[in-house]
C-alpha cells in the first residue's frame, strides 16, 4: 500500500468494518447486564417429545394434550395414580346400585375453577352431557355411550344412569377426556384452559414451550413447584442434547433409548424405566386378501422374532406381548409363547394357504422412531419366512387418512397408547377390520361381568381369542424411559395414561420456595409502524429520484408475482392428502366427531371461497387461524420470526465477516499460491452440506466439549445471552457454505471489475494492482456481492428448515415443517407467502441498490 493513495479506500473499508463491528458489538454486549438469575428451586423444566395441538382434553384425542394438562390443569371426578389405580379426585366417594346401572358420586365441596367459577354437581352434569351430546367433538364418545342420563341430586351429589352395566365407569371417568370443565370457559379451553387443578396456563410459545404456573385457591395440597415449563423436543438428538446440557430438568418420556446407557453412567442423572400402556403391534388388514386367511396371519406371527426386535429397534427397552393387552392390566395372561419364532413353520402355513412362493406385502409406517426402526428390523425377519415386505413411510396425517381411515394398507406398525382398549376389536369399522361374532359375544360378557374375578377370567378369554385369531402381530409393550436430574423427584415413573402429573414433583432439598422470577414483558418498539413509515419514505424518495413510472412498473410486476405465488401455493396445497380434522382427533375418534370438527375449522367451503377468504386475511395481516393451534397465524409467524430473523441476520453478518477478507485477499493475490489455497478452502466450504456441519459442530462443541447446548431455544424472555448463545452454532452452520459462496463471488467480481476500462486506465496511470483494487474494484464489486447477500437472506430465513430441525429451534422453517406434517395448511400457505414476499422485497431492494450504486444504470430512467 503506497502512502496516501489508498487512504480513501481504506476509510471506506474502515467505515464498513466499523459498522459491522458495531452491529455485532451491539448484539453481543448490549444486554450483558441482564445476567441470568440462578434457577429457582420451585421451577421445573420438562421435556416432551410432542407438542399438543391445543389444550382442550375433551376435544380431540391428541395424547400430547393430556401430557400437559392432566391432573395439572384439569381434574376429573376420579383420577388415575401412577400405578394405574383409580383414586378419588373431585368425587370423594362413589357407589353403584346392585343392578350396576345406577351410580352415585359424592362430590368434593368448595372447589373452584382457576377463573373463580364454582364447581358443583350441575357443572359435572354439564361436563358429562357435553361428551355424549350430538355434535360432540370428544374423541372417546363411544366409551361413554352407555351413559343414559346424568342427574343432579344436590350440589354435592351426582347420579349417573347407564343403559348397560359398566364396571369400569370410575376408571373411564378418570380419563382426560372426562375432565370437568366450566360452562363459562368450555368453549375456549383449547387456547386458554380453565380447570380445577393446581396449575393454570401462563404462556405458550408455539413450537417451543409452554409454561404452567401455580394458582391460588386450589382445593387440595398446593404443589411444591411454582412454575412448570414444558419444552417440546421431538428430535431424539435434540432431546439428548437438551438433557445433557441441563436445559431440561427431566424428560419423562425420553425418545432415544440408545442414549440410556450413557445417562445411567452419568451421576448427574437418574434413569427411571417404568411401564407404559403403549402396545406396539403389527397391524394387519384383516379384510384384505390374503390376510383374511387366518393361516396367513399366523404365518406372520410365527415370522416375528420379538426379542431381536426389542433389542434391535428399542435397544432392549420393551417387553414382549402376546395379545393386545398390557402386562400390568387386570386379568393379563402371558400368550407370548403361542407363536414362537419359527420361519419354517411360517413358510409351511403360507404354502397351506396357497402361497408356496411366499407373498409380497407393503408395510406402511407412521413417522415415530419406534415404528420406523421396528419396520426395518421386521422386514428382514419377514423375509426369512418368505414374506417380501416393502416399506412405505408415511407422515402421521397421511397415516391417519390412508391407513387408519381408508384402510389402504397391508401391514402397519403402530403403538396403541389407550389403556384397556380391547373394545376396538369389536369395532367393525376399525382399521384392522376384525370381525368375529365369538369375540363380540365375549366382549358383551366382559361388559356385563358381575364381579372382578369373573371379569378377569373373561378378559383372559378375550386375550386368547384375539391371539388365537392372530388378528395382528403383537410385538412389545413399550417402556417409559424417564431421564431426570438426580435431584428431581415426585414425577410419575409409570405411564398408566399419557400424563405428566407434576402436582407432587419437586427438588430434593429445596427449602422454602424462592420468589417467582418475574417474566419480562416483551414490549419494545412498535416495529410494524417503524418499518411501514420507513418503507413509505423509501418509496417516496425512489419515486422522486427515479420517476414514478419506473417505480409503478416495478411494483406492479412484484405484486403480480406475489399474487401468482399465492395461487400456486394454494393450488398445490389443495391436493395434499390427509385431513387436518382426523389428525387432531387421533386414533379412536368417531366419524361424527371428525365431521363436527371439520365444520368448526371452516374446512367445508368451496376451494375458491377459501382462497379469497385467505387472500383477504393476508391483506389485513391476520393470515387466518391455525387449525391446530387455533390462534391467528400472523401471531405464530411473528413469534417464529423472532428466532429466524436474528438467526438469518447473524448468519449473514458472520458470512460477510469471513468472506470479505478471503475474497479480497484471493483477488489481490490472483494466481499465487495464496489465491489457489483460498479458492480451495472455499471449494471445501461450498461442498459441505450445512446440516452435516451442524452435526459436526454438535459433536465437537456440545457432546465433547459441552460448551453449547445443542438444541432448543430458551426464548428471548429468558434474557438475551442464553437466547443468543442458542443461535451461535446454528448461525455458524448456516453461514459456512454461504461465506464460501460469497467469497468466491467477491473474488470473481473484483477480478471482473479489474478488467473494466476505467480500472485499466487507472492502472495505466500508474496505480498498483492493490491500489486499483481498493480504490475502484471493491467499490463496484459490491453490487454482485449485495445481490448474492440479498438472495441468500430469504434462503437463510427458510433455509433453516433443516438446521432448525437439527437444533430444535422454533423458527419459521420448523413451523412450516411441523405444519405440513400436521396438515395445518393455512400456516404452510401463509409462511410460504411471507417468505416469497421477503424474496420479492429483497429483489426490489437490490434493484434500487443497483440504481444507487451504478451511475450508468441511472441514465436509463429517461
Amino acid at each position: 500500500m503506497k502512502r496516501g493513495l489508498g487512504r480513501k479506500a481504506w476509510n471506506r473499508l474502515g467505515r464498513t468494518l466499523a459498522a459491522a463491528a458495531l452491529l455485532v458489538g451491539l448484539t453481543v454486549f448490549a444486554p450483558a447486564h441482564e445476567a441470568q438469575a440462578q434457577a429457582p428451586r420451585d421451577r421445573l423444566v420438562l421435556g416432551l417429545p410432542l407438542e399438543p395441538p391445543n389444550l382442550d382434553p375433551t376435544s380431540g384425542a391428541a395424547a400430547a394434550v393430556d401430557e400437559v394438562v392432566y391432573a395439572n390443569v384439569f381434574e376429573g371426578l376420579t383420577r388415575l395414580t401412577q400405578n394405574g389405580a383409580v383414586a378419588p379426585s373431585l368425587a370423594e366417594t362413589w357407589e353403584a346400585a346392585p343392578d350396576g346401572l345406577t351410580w352415585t358420586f359424592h362430590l368434593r365441596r368448595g372447589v373452584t375453577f382457576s377463573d373463580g367459577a364454582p364447581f358443583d354437581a350441575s357443572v359435572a352434569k354439564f361436563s358429562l352431557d357435553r361428551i355424549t351430546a350430538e355434535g360432540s367433538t370428544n374423541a372417546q364418545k363411544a366409551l361413554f355411550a352407555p351413559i343414559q342420563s346424568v342427574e343432579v341430586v344436590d350440589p354435592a351429589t351426582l347420579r349417573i344412569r347407564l343403559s348397560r352395566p359398566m364396571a369400569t365407569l370410575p376408571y373411564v371417568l378418570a380419563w382426560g377426556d372426562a375432565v370437568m370443565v366450566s360452562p363459562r370457559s368450555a368453549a375456549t379451553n383449547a387456547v386458554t384452559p380453565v380447570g380445577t387443578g393446581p396449575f393454570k396456563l401462563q404462556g405458550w410459545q408455539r413450537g417451543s414451550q409452554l409454561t404452567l404456573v401455580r394458582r391460588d385457591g386450589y382445593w387440595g395440597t398446593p404443589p411444591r413447584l411454582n412454575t412448570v415449563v414444558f419444552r417440546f423436543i421431538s428430535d431424539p438428538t435434540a432431546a439428548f442434547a437438551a438433557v445433557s446440557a441441563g436445559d431440561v430438568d427431566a424428560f419423562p418420556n425420553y425418545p432415544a433409548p440408545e442414549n440410556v446407557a450413557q445417562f445411567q453412567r452419568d451421576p448427574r442423572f437418574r434413569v427411571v424405566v417404568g411401564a407404559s400402556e403403549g402396545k406396539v403391534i403389527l397391524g394387519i388388514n384383516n379384510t384384505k386378501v390374503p390376510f383374511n386367511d387366518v393361516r396367513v396371519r399366523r404365518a406372520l406371527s410365527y415370522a416375528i422374532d420379538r426379542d431381536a426386535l426389542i433389542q434391535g429397534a428399542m435397544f432392549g427397552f420393551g417387553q414382549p406381548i402376546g395379545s393386545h393387552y398390557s402386562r400390568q392390566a387386570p386379568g393379563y395372561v402371558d400368550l407370548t409363547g403361542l407363536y414362537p419364532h419359527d420361519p419354517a413353520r411360517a413358510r409351511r402355513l403360507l404354502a397351506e394357504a396357497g402361497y408356496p412362493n411366499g407373498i409380497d406385502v407393503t408395510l406402511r409406517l407412521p413417522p415415530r422412531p419406534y415404528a420406523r426402526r421396528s419396520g426395518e428390523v421386521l422386514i428382514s425377519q419377514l423375509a426369512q419366512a418368505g414374506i417380501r415386505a416393502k416399506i412405505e413411510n408415511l407422515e402421521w396425517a397421511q397415516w391417519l387418512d390412508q391407513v387408519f381411515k381408508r384402510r389402504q394398507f397391508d401391514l402397519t406398525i403402530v403403538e396403541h397408547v389407550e389403556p384397556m382398549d380391547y373394545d376396538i376389536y369389536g369395532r367393525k369399522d376399525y382399521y384392522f377390520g376384525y370381525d368375529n361374532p365369538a369375540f363380540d359375544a365375549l366382549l358383551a360378557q366382559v361388559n356385563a361381568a358381575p364381579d372382578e374375578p369373573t371379569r378377569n377370567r373373561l378378559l383372559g378369554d378375550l386375550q386368547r381369542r384375539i391371539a388365537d385369531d392372530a388378528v395382528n402381530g403383537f410385538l412389545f409393550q413399550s417402556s417409559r424411559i424417564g431421564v431426570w436430574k438426580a435431584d428431581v423427584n415426585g414425577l410419575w415413573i409409570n405411564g398408566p395414561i399419557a400424563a405428566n402429573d407434576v402436582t407432587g414433583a419437586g427438588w430434593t432439598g429445596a427449602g422454602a420456595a424462592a420468589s417467582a422470577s418475574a417474566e419480562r414483558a416483551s414490549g419494545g418498539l412498535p416495529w410494524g409502524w417503524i418499518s411501514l413509515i420507513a418503507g413509505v419514505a423509501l418509496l417516496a424518495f425512489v419515486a422522486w429520484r427515479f420517476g414514478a413510472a419506473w417505480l409503478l412498473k416495478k411494483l406492479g410486476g412484484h405484486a403480480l408475482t406475489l399474487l401468482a405465488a399465492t395461487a400456486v401455493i394454494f393450488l398445490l396445497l389443495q391436493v395434499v392428502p390427509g385431513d387436518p380434522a382426523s389428525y387432531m382427533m387421533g386414533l379412536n375418534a368417531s366419524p361424527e366427531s371428525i365431521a363436527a370438527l371439520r365444520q368448526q375449522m371452516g374446512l367445508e367451503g368451496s376451494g375458491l371461497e377459501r382462497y379469497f377468504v385467505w387472500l383477504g386475511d393476508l391483506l389485513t395481516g391476520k393470515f387466518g387461524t391455525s387449525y391446530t393451534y387455533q390462534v391467528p397465524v400472523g401471531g405464530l409467524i411473528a413469534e417464529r420470526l423472532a428466532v429466524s430473523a436474528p438467526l438469518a441476520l447473524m448468519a449473514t453478518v458472520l458470512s460477510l465477516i469471513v468472506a470479505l477478507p478471503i475474497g479480497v485477499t484471493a483477488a489481490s493475490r490472483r494466481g499465487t499460491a495464496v489465491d489457489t489455497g483460498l479458492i480451495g478452502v472455499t471449494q471445501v466450504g461450498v461442498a459441505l452440506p450445512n446440516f452435516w456441519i451442524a452435526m459436526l459442530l454438535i459433536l465437537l462443541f456440545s457432546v465433547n466439549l459441552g460448551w453449547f447446548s445443542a438444541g432448543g431455544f430458551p426464548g428471548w424472555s429468558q434474557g438475551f445471552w442464553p437466547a443468543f448463545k442458542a443461535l451461535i452454532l446454528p448461525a455458524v452452520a448456516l453461514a459456512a457454505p454461504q461465506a464460501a459462496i460469497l467469497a468466491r463471488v467477491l473474488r470473481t467480481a473484483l477480478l471482473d471489475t479489474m478488467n473494466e476500462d476505467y480500472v485499466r486506465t487507472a492502472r495505466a496511470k500508474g496505480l498498483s494492482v492493490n491500489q486499483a483494487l481498493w480504490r475502484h474494484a471493491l467499490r463496484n464489486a459490491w453490487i454482485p456481492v449485495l445481490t448474492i447477500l440479498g438472495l441468500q437472506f430469504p434462503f437463510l430465513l427458510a433455509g433453516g428448515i433443516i438446521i432448525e430441525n437439527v437444533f430444535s429451534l422454533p423458527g419459521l422453517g420448523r413451523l412450516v415443517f411441523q405444519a405440513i406434517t400436521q396438515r395445518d395448511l393455512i400456516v404452510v400457505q401463509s409462511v410460504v407467502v411471507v417468505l416469497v414476499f421477503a424474496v420479492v422485497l429483497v429483489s426490489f431492494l437490490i434493484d434500487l441498490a443497483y440504481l444507487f450504486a451504478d451511475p450508468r444504470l441511472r441514465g436509463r430512467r429517461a
Partner: protein
Amino acid sequence: MTDAPAVPAAKPRVRWPLSLIVGATLTAVVLATALLALVWTPYDVESVDIAAKLTAPSAAHWMGTDHFGRDVLSMIMAGAQNSLIVAFVAVGIGVGIGTPLGLTAAARGGWVDELVMRGNDLIFAFPALLLAVMITAVMGPGAINAVIAIGVFNIPVFTRVARGAAQGLWTREYVLAARTAGKSRALISIQHILPNLMSLLVVQAAIQFAVGIVAEAGLSYVGLGAQPPAPSWGRMLAEAQTMIGFAPWLAIMPGLAIFVTVLGLSLTGDGLRDLFDPRVRRER
C-alpha cells in the same frame, strides 16, 4: 470473448486446470463406487444383524456398523447410486425443459420472453428447499418425487443461463446472416445458438449436479427422499444423530461421502469453466 486481449502466442497447448483434474478424479471414484455397488458390496445392505450392531470401524467393517448391525461401507456404496441418479435426473429435467425455454425466450423476445422470465421469477421466489418439502409433502416421500422437486428448481437456472447467453449470440454477424438467409428462429436456435451454449450448459450442469446431491441429502435427511430399506446418505445422517455421542462414525462417514461427491462435481464444474472460458484462464 471478442475483447480477449493479445495472449502471448507461445502457449497454444491446452492447460488442464488443476481443479478439473482433481474434480474429475473424485467424480470418477464416486461413479466407479456406485457402479461397483450394483454388482458387489462387502455385505448385504439390507441384512440386519442385531448381534453385530454399533461396532466401530474395524478390519471386518471398514466404516463400522449401524444400530441394526448393517455394514456402513456397504450402505454408503449402495447409497451413492440413489444420490447420483436423483441429482442426475433432476439436472436432466432442468436442461431438458429450461434450455428450450431460455432459447425460445431469447429467440422470440417480447411477451414470450416476459412470460418465461416472470415464470422463472416466480419459481425463484420460492425458497428452494421449502418448495421441495412442499412438493414431496403433496406427492408423498420417495426418490422419484425428490427428483421432481429438485428438477423443478433446475429449470429456471438453465432457462436463465440459456436466455442470457443466447440473447448475446442473436446480435452476432453469423446469426444475422442466417436470418437474412431465411432460416426460421427455431432452426437458428438449434443450429447456431445451441452449439455455442454447450460449454456454458455443461459447466452449469456440473454445478447443478453438485447442488442436487446436497438437496437430495437434505430431503432424505428430513425423511422425504428415498425410502428405507433403500440406503440413502441423507437418511443415514438423520439416523446417526441420536447416536452421535457413542457412534460418531455413523454421522461422519455418510457426510464425508456427500462432501467428496459434491466437491468432485463442483471442482469439475469450475475446471470446465476455466477450460472453456479463456478469459478466466488468463486470470490464473
